[in-house]
């Protein structure tokens, strides 16, 4: 080959890899955005090779380097991953026919290799001028979402949202397992504020309607809010370290670490069931130091969901948070937990339930919002689990709250209780009021009435005493708080060979 030919090739590669015009790079930098190739360099393991396909896509157009998207295979934490990454310096990362074809092809590769698929999104959406070529056909944009649905639960799918994800494009994050959004820059919306004003007459800011913080705290479309692109990429790398490459494999063991030092569990959990405490503190005492990776921290704080490690083994934790809304289950908390349970079950991550729950919320507001329908989602997802399922009753577990937190009827591999546990249809106060309400009203002397109520509450407490429940074998064990981590670790080790099929059928009729 002549030097001339080689020079032509190298010039072209350099030109394409430089992305769009300098002014768009400046605009990117002004918004604290990295260039797409810089993002990929940070995402992939340092010093490792990567492979990119269709670098020359649409090179004949002259002004659309790589057709606005980089698709590549690389390594993250030593594991192979497939990536698509929009280039916002090329027509604002918009999609043409070859952009879409490239995305579809890298998805197909991820399916064949059974490796995680990452979507680094920063795109204005479809190029309307190219719509016939990229929108409606068999390998049009719709196929991207179809593939995502097909891949869901087969391989981890992660979305890093660096910029807008508009209209149809907003479904890319929606079909991912987890969405990491960069504060101030990331947004998701079906119709832009300008469109909303034109079509429905609403005046609203982008941040208010589709901003990262809103999605991570109100709509629940976002899972993790990052303060910078660098942090978002670090979070994605860390997230992947908890997961196997696909549904057939198991998560990789990491170096075990003792939990962080601090107050003993006995001191953290108050005996009075009605007094709040901070469940995060309890979690930090049972998981390996620094291993807790929370999902949806800013959304429905009355339930905590997160990945963690116990003696180096990945686990998923679902825990009620008595400090927020009393740990009561609401519509959003049920959704949040159901989704997290499904995620862990798909990728062989054992689940630990830490129950301190007064039950599902009652009242007009939640009934009208369909709390029963949403609660059913959580109970269905939790029932369906075939990974190791460990239920820990920390304090109260009342009513359907016991069911939602993998109570004994839902075939947990164990249901163990701390000495502070209290399992009942309802708490003593509510139960005595319900059963003896007429009798209580008949007693005229206030002192006598109080004594009667106290006596009945005492009888009730004895009736639901945790040792009585252990005697009836409703629970499998009562564990000293200081031994909780150890017992969970031992049980997880025995449960490693667990294998089961939940039910015979095509699929359930989901209570969505």
């Amino acid at each position: 080959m002549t030097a001339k030919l080689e020079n032509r090739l190298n010039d072209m590669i350099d030109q394409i890899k430089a992305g769009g015009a300098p002014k768009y790079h400046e605009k990117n930098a002004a918004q604290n955005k990295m260039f797409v190739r810089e993002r990929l360099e940070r995402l992939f393991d340092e010093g490792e090779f990567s492979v990119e396909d269709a670098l020359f896509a649409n090179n004949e157009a002259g002004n659309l380097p790589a057709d606005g998207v980089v698709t590549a295979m690389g390594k993250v934490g030593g594991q192979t991953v497939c990536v698509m990454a929009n280039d916002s310096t090329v027509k604002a990362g918009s999609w043409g026919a070859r952009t879409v074809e490239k995305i579809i092809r890298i998805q197909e590769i991820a399916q064949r290799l059974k490796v995680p698929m990452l979507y680094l999104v920063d795109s204005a959406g479809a190029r309307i001028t190219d719509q016939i070529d990229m929108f409606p056909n068999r390998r049009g944009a719709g196929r991207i979402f179809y593939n995502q649905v097909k891949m869901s639960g087969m391989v981890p799918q992660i979305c890093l949202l660096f910029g807008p994800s508009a209209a149809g494009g907003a479904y890319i994050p929606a079909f991912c397992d987890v969405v990491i959004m960069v504060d101030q820059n990331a947004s998701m919306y079906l119709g832009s504020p300008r469109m909303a004003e034109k079509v429905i007459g609403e005046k609203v800011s982008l941040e208010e309607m589709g901003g990262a913080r809103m999605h991570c705290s109100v709509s629940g479309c976002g899972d993790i809010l990052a303060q910078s692109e660098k942090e978002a990429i670090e979070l994605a790398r860390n997230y992947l370290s908890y997961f196997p490459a696909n549904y057939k494999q198991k998560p990789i063991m990491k170096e075990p670490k003792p939990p962080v030092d601090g107050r003993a569990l006995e001191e953290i959990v108050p005996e009075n069931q009605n007094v709040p405490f901070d469940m995060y503190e309890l979690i930090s005492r049972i998981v390996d130091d620094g291993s807790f990776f929370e999902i949806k921290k800013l959304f429905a704080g009355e339930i905590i969901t997160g990945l963690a490690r116990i003696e180096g083994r990945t686990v998923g934790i679902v825990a009620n948070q008595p400090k927020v809304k009393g740990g009561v289950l609401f519509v959003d908390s049920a959704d949040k937990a159901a989704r997290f349970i499904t995620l862990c079950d798909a990728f062989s991550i054992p689940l630990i339930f830490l129950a301190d729950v007064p039950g599902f919320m009652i009242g007009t507001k939640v009934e009208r919002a369909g709390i029963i329908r949403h609660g059913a989602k959580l109970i269905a997802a939790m029932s369906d689990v075939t990974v190791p399922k460990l239920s820990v009753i920390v304090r109260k577990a009342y009513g359907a709250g016991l069911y939602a937190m993998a109570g004994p009827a839902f075939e947990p591999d164990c249901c163990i209780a701390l000495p502070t546990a209290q399992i009942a249809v309802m708490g003593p106060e509510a139960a005595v009021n319900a059963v003896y309400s007429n009798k209580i009203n008949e007693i005229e002397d206030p002192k006598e009435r109080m004594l009667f109520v106290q006596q009945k509450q005492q009888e009730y407490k004895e009736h639901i005493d945790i040792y009585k429940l252990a005697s009836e074998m409703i629970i499998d064990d009562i564990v000293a708080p200081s031994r909780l981590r150890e017992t969970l670790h031992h049980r997880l080790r025995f449960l490693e060979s667990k294998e089961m099929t939940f039910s015979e059928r095509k699929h359930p009729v989901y209570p969505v």
Partner: protein
Amino acid sequence: MKEINANMAGTVLNVLVNKGEGVSPGQLVVVLESMKMEIPIESTVEGTVTDIKVGIGDFVNEGDTLVILT
């Protein structure tokens, strides 16, 4: 003007601030009772209490204003 609202339906168990008092973020201002649990309501902002909209024993719905700050 900033409002501190009830984050869930319940009954007012205690009001821990007075008119004219300064509050800081994270400070406990009202305790609700709901589902037999104590529900602490903290201020998310800094300000001075100009009005208290509820009294002990009142029923409040989710979103109802408890305290107004400037």
